[in-house]
């Protein structure tokens, strides 16, 4: 039996494309009670998708949102979403590329610190959700002969991160995300590399001396204490290992150690 006419068959691919790209119009197969397409009805889905993803980005990047204002942020988020559709239903993992997107967005050239603010907020979120882990107990260091200390390598606590920056990123986040302080008091000439830690459940952000930041980056990429101290001394000749290590230890940035390099 030949069909007199065929009903428009709407695939998930076409439905999805029409969601993201309104220029494609309302799909013929998605109809109201009279059997005809209705743009308002289809727009409910379009709106749900875009608005919910904009909100997800806004929750991950509240400082960027506050710095740019609601309207600008919404437009920017839409542009980001068009380039980076989420692929995973777990939205706490969505938006990692937002920092580099900001850096490459020509109209924001005059605000070069936005990229690093976004990197700090992404790192904050990763820390918040990181695996639970005991912090390293400094007492364990007492059993290491002083001569062996230089060869010690630490394991990073899973919730620890360092965000290097030439900009006052902590001040920008403190004021815009945590509503602590005044925008007008922020000195954009100050560099604030930060250490992010979460010894238990609360994320803490600490401003690091540039040499301490260099030290941290080095030990977290596998350098021994001795190697990391050399790197830090290149940044600041006044660097002292004892002060720096106690800074990392007291903030709960470390999870454990490997005592010796393989011979």
């Amino acid at each position: 039996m030949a069909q007199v006419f065929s009903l428009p068959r709407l695939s998930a691919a076409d439905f999805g494309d029409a969601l993201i790209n309104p220029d494609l119009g309302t799909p013929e197969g998605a109809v109201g009670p009279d059997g005809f397409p209705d743009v308002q009805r289809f727009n409910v889905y379009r709106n749900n998708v875009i608005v919910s993803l904009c909100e997800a980005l806004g929750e991950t990047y509240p400082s960027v949102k506050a710095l740019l204002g609601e309207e600008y942020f919404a437009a920017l988020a839409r542009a980001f979403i068009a380039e980076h559709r989420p692929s995973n239903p777990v939205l706490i993992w969505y938006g990692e590329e937002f920092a580099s997107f900001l850096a490459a967005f020509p109209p924001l050239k005059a605000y070069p610190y936005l990229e690093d603010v976004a990197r700090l907020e992404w790192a904050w979120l990763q820390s918040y959700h990181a695996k639970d882990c005991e912090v390293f107990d400094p007492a364990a260091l007492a059993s290491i002969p002083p001569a062996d200390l230089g060869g010690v390598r630490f394991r990073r606590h899973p919730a620890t991160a360092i965000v290097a920056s030439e900009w006052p990123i902590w001040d920008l986040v403190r004021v815009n995300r945590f509503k602590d302080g005044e925008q007008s008091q922020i000195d954009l000439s100050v560099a604030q590399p930060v250490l992010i830690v979460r010894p238990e459940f609360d994320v803490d952000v600490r401003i690091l001396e540039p040499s301490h930041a260099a030290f941290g980056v080095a030990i977290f990429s596998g350098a021994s204490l001795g190697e990391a101290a050399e790197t830090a001394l290149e940044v600041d000749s006044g660097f002292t290992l004892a002060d720096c290590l106690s800074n990392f230890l007291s903030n709960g940035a470390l999870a454990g150690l490997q005592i010796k390099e393989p011979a």
Partner: protein
Amino acid sequence: MRSDKQPVSAFCTPAAVPRRPGAGLKAEHVADILQSRPDIGFFEVHAENYMGAGGRPHQQLTAIRDVYPLSLHGVGLSIGGESPLDKDHLGRLAELNKRYEPGLFSEHLAWSTHETTYYNDLLPVPYDQATLTRVCDHIDEVQHVMGRQMLLENPSTYIAYAQSTISELDFLKEITRRTGCGLLLDVNNVYVSCTNQEQSPAAYLAEFPMQCVGELHLGGHAPDIDEAGRPLLIDAHDRAVDDAVWALYKNVIEMHGALPTLIEWDNDVPAWPILLREADAAQEILICAQDADLKAVS
């Protein structure tokens, strides 16, 4: 394969969700809840919010689960999708199920992922034979991997597919018959969808396979109109439950008895006491129905 050993629960509270009201758990309410220990039947969480490795969300959920039964509600599995289920995502659901021993597990008759894009909305599915087969295969897979029965929630819809050949009710009934899954009856979704499709919510509910229902949902919707000026209700979960939905709920409870009933309020989330008040309103309806039952028996 079945183990002879009973799982030893790490929690003080039994897993089973009682036939009482519950509330959607919001992070901002947890401290208040743990401090005031409200008399409420259970809490329901969106599974995707607890898929991080650790930290505060899991600490909060563990503390809540210790004193309340839990219902685990997935919003991103895309059971109605054309693509195969995301095995990793299903694995994460199974892990949460094992860790928190929820009394109920539910997901939606909807899709959200196609190929590599996740659309972050509960999108409608066409009601035809091909979709029916696929949805049943997906539910079989979910129930197999999770090792438990799931409840499938009826959707809120704004459009219908011109290609649909089966009614939503027949579609749901056939799914339960083929897969043995239960249903989560969202009364607000019924009201929203039936209004949007110009059908009678009461007639829909009269035909609903209530023997399969393990849980009810109640939530708020936002009124709008479509291009043709017809009423268009949006399942916004951003306000109190509408009077019309309360009336339908009362009817369902009077006809079929008490069921676990969740108040969903996910956007513009109010202070905890206001959400609790909604749950108390549901409790009153449940108690009235039980009193009437007792009178009928004696």
